[in-house]
């Protein structure tokens, strides 16, 4: 009996507490930098596309909303010919970002993507690709190691040893 009256009183006092609501369109909630929102494709420090068209994001996506087609330029550098994300199906789980070996695909703190027409939620590569590096600066996949695709010479990568002449490797 007493506890009922007490809870009534405590509830009543909440009338004079501070509101917790953020009145959204006028006042925006602060989003943490790693908030998972709209997806972008970033570029490396040299301004080239980071994506190498490995399909790992498409494979990781639980709702299969990424579609892409890999191709190569004249140097043999791989890039996506088209890259399409259907945001009406995306659940913003961030698995694609986790799967990506090159930091190309990234989720950014932006959620204001409302559209009247459902088809407008299908983003093409032009809509996804940004000019900058996104959240991860200074990383260039092709500069680390690997084949020569016109970015660095063979054996000149940052984490790469000089190639070994196998014919001199005699016992």
């Amino acid at each position, binding site marked *: 009996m007493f506890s009922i009256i007490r*809870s009534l009183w*405590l*509830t009543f006092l*909440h*009338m004079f*507490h501070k*509101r*917790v*609501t953020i009145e959204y369109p006028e006042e925006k909630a602060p989003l943490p930098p790693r908030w998972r929102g709209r997806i972008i494709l970033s570029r490396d420090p040299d301004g080239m596309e980071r994506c190498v068209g490995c399909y790992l994001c498409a494979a990781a996506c639980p709702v299969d909303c990424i579609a892409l087609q890999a191709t190569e330029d004249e140097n043999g550098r791989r890039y996506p010919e088209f890259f399409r994300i259907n945001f009406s199906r995306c659940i913003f789980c961030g698995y694609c970002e986790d799967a990506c070996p090159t930091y190309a695909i990234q989720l950014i703190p932006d959620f204001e993507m409302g559209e009247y027409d459902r088809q407008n939620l299908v983003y093409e590569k032009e809509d996804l690709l940004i000019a900058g590096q996104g959240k991860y600066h200074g990383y260039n996949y092709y500069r680390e190691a690997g084949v020569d695709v016109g970015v660095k010479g063979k054996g000149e990568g940052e984490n790469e040893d000089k190639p070994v002449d196998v014919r001199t490797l005699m016992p």
Partner: protein
Amino acid sequence: MNETLKLTLIAIGILLALLTIAAGLIWVERRMLAAWQDRYGPNRVGPFGILQVVADMIKMFFKEDWIPPFADKSVFILAPAIVMVTILLSFVIIPFAPGILVADINIGLLFFLAMSSLGAYSVVLGGWASNNKYSLLGAVRGAAQMISYEVFMGLSVMGVVIMAGSFNMTDIVLAQKNVWFFIPQFLGFVIFFIAGIAETHRLPFDIPEAESELIAGYHSEYSGMKFGMFFVGEYLGITLISALITTLFFGGWLGFGFLPPVVWFLIKMFAFILFFILLRASLPRPRYDQLMSFGWKILLPLSLLNLLVTGALVLYFT
């Protein structure tokens, strides 16, 4: 002729005022609940969001009014009408101020009790006609709850009737000239209030609806304006119980002079309506058997005791 016209106008005026209040209460409740939960509530449509009511109404009218093919069609349509009719008829006996009442009948209080018993039919029939397990469970619960709480509701107001010496609502108000009945009849007031909550099946006694257990209980299958009638009926019920508490225990239109009587009545009534909402904001729903045993084992003996003591004292002093 002139007298008839006046009565008709009063009746229509009360009807319109009540419907406006009931609709407005939807907004009031949402705002107040929000206030007690540290939110704002609807505040976008019109000043302070008051036009939210209009928006809700428009939405309700244009919703598809669907009757499930497995339902008992005629009863299904009848049920929401019963709740509106019985509650609106109960308002006939409420004296809002001297002269502002529809019918000054000498069995006023009995008429209300009869109408609220009839109101139980809307829950039972609505649940039965829906032909759905959840609705039926809600209807069975509603029937049991409303019938048992009606018993103490009737008994608890008998103290007031003994003290006023009349069933007529105007006489009851006038009998409170010296002291409002909630002081000598405090127990009766508390029991009537609890029974009133159960009667309108509001939280914490919303067991026939119990969203978390029964979807929406007896009106799970209702949509469109039929649901709207149950919805508005619920708010009319709150208004009715608050108006009755005001009349029976808090001196009706009697006030302290400087405001017109009807304003005093409305102030008191709204205070109780807000208390109804506060109850909803703060108390959890009891279990069904707890509700029943609370009623029969605690409230019934208490109301009998109240009746006995009041009767004995009144006999002794007169």
